[in-house]
């Protein structure tokens, strides 16, 4: 027990080395912030910073799950749809069926996790490639989400739910931002200081080596997809609070944003290297970039082009650095 406490303290002290491999993205983030500080007069302010945090909550929560998946060399294309399904389950249970929120939220999260369980079992037991398994789950869950209300949105959540995304406790944190920060910290600690987290690097580095080293690769894989879907569901709760409504068309192509954040953060798509630290930076880069481009009144279409270019830049820089 004492060792555990010691490790937690150690975690805070060694946060910087834990970004090892993500120093490139970190420099990128700093350069971006410096540029925007001089290019606009609104960027450098507490209020704008809090805005950025609010805007990245959904992506941030989702990207943590995606990091674990990519770390083991997998991919999860279903997270956007799973998020929509979780939202629709929440809306249906609370607004239509009258289930209280304290029960409806866990049930919605359970529904989301179930998708990950199915994907994980398809991948491990039936050897379906992760890309295909989650592509199928993406289609299935999107369809199911639409079936709940025949494509209609649901409104009528209690007032406090929306307030979670609006009220800033201590003038600082909304509850949704707090959720994201907790997910970041738990994810970071798990990945670096838990047995189960270290195992993921072995699985992603070389699954056969991991298996022969006595690691339960199948169990770890299923668990990772369950966690990823759970976090997709959780990001759905965050989005529902922000929008004060749920609709089945939410989260289309969010999986690509999440993958982009993970990749910008330096986690390799082939697995085994990277981590949550880099992903947090990747999420911040996307958030700051979108915010800055809005402040600079860049058109949303141009923003897509720029974000694409940033992905290319981040990945080529990383490959180049590695080759040297």
């Amino acid at each position, binding site marked *: 027990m004492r060792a555990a406490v010691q*490790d937690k303290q150690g975690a805070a002290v060694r946060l910087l080395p834990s970004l090892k491999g993500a120093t490139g993205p970190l420099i990128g983030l700093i350069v971006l912030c410096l540029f925007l500080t001089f290019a606009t007069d609104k960027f450098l302010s507490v209020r704008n910073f809090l805005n950025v945090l609010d805007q990245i909550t959904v992506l941030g929560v989702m990207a943590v799950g995606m990091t674990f998946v990519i770390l083991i060399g997998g991919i999860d294309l279903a997270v956007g749809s799973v998020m929509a399904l979780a939202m629709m389950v929440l809306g249906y249970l609370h607004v239509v069926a009258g289930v209280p929120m304290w029960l409806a939220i866990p049930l919605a999260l359970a529904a989301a996790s179930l998708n990950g369980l199915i994907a994980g079992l398809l991948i491990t037991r039936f050897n379906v490639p992760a890309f295909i398994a989650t592509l199928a789950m993406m289609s299935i869950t999107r369809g199911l989400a639409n079936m709940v209300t025949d494509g209609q949105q649901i409104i009528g959540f209690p007032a406090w739910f929306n307030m979670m995304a609006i009220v800033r406790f201590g003038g600082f944190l909304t509850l949704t931002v707090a959720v994201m920060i907790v997910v970041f910290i738990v994810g970071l600690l798990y990945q670096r200081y838990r*047995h189960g987290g*270290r195992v993921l*690097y*072995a699985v992603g580095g*070389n699954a056969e080596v991991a298996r022969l080293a*006595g690691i*339960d690769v199948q169990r770890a894989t299923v668990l990772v997809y369950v966690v990823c879907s759970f976090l997709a569901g959780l990001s759905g709760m965050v989005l529902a609070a922000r929008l004060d409504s749920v609709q089945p068309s939410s989260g289309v192509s969010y999986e690509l944003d999440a993958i982009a954040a993970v990749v910008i953060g330096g986690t390799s798509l082939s697995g085994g290297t990277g981590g949550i630290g880099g992903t947090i930076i990747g999420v911040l880069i996307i958030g700051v970039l979108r915010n800055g481009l809005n402040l600079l009144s860049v058109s949303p279409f141009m923003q897509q082009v720029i974000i694409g270019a940033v992905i290319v830049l981040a990945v080529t820089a990383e490959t180049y650095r590695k080759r040297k």
Partner: protein
Amino acid sequence: MTPHSPILSLRRIRKSYGPIKVLHGIDLDIHPGEVVALLGENGAGKSTLSNIISGTVQPSAGEMTWLGRAYAPADPRAAMEEGIGMIHQELKLLPKLSIAENVFVGRYPMKAGRIDRKTMEDRARSGLHRLGLDISPDRLVDGLSTGKQQLIEIAKALTLNARLLILDEPTAALGAEETQLLFRQIERLKSEGVGIIYISHRLEEIRKIADRIVVMRDGAKVQEFESGDVPIRTIVEAMVGRSLERMFPTLPAPTDQVTLEVRNLSSPSNAFRDISFSVRRGEVFGIAGLMGAGRTELVRAISGADPISSGEVLLHGRPVTPRSPIDAIRNGIVLVPEDRKLQGVVLDHSIAENIGYANLGEISRSGWVSSRRIRQFAEECIKTFGVKGRGGQNAGELSGGNQQKVVLAKWLARKPQVVVLDEPTRGIDVGARSSIYDLIIDLAREGVAVIVVSSDLEEVLGVSSRILVMAQGKQAGILNREDANDVSVMELATI
């Protein structure tokens, strides 16, 4: 000696990478119709030298003469056009293309803007024929044995009218029969006047095939033998640069106590059938056999890595038939797998992490681990087992011998009862091998039951107190150390 003048001459070839000198002024002549064996430990400079000849690497200084003219290929393609072909250790054939397409890839014969398939296949067929291969050139490469693929690589070089072939470890993945086939083709090429540079770690075959032996060490040519028939010990001594007092340490006497017992073990794929043996505490038990005899499948099954269809494994008389590696490891049966790079270590992760992966349960306290503690744990293992490297170094940067020690070290911290080593010294320097043998014997001394699988007959004979010989998946016999020699083992293996 040879009536002809050399086809290739190297004079004072040097190569440095920055301040690191890898070749110090090599002189080498290759005559037509001659097989020159290029020997040396890993890092001796053999690959660099052959890469220079084949145009992959440019020398920093020195001259080459090819067929009487100055020769300085800019890239492998230029070398190939001059008639110098290199056949790499890793095959570079495209499995989903036909043999003919592979032979002519990148330089398809054209007619009227289209690929002239007929010419292509005819020329490929004559190339295959020249090597005594009776396969249709329109067959896909996919599914051909490694030996056949190797010959196709050679056919590819021959269609370029190669007059010099560089073969880098051509027999590393070949069985005895395929090796014989390759040797017959080498003889044929010799008679046609093709010069051959032959790189191999298998010294027995050098004696059969080489006309001349050139030994390199630390980037220099240290010795040249004007005949292939040199005692292996003499070659090894030249390679490692010191006289070897012993290759194999003395074996400890095993106890009478049986640690591991295997009863009527069979595999679902029929790779091995009805195998029974027992290994005593402190015994080194060897398993020999030809390529494809089922040795690897057998030991993988014992360590839970491959499935078992019937039979059982007992540890101290208790049934422990493993269903997964986790099962086996819990019971103290651990495997050092055949292919270090694909199964033993994660190459781009650090030594510490690699050791940690097998010991996370041990290192963690109620599920918490830190890099620092993994590192401490690993550094201790590294010290105990004499791995040359630091914990933070990537496993891929280590030499083969040290990688193998990392794989062993990660297990030995768990105090296993049975250690299974599959091809423990494959691709490892002759000099580094003896330290692996020392580790194996030390394990036996500490009371571990050790199983060693090896294609290297001398190795199995040298370290085992008993040898199980397998042939085509069946148990051909178990020989005691006194009765085991290369003849008795090969007799059983070729049943």
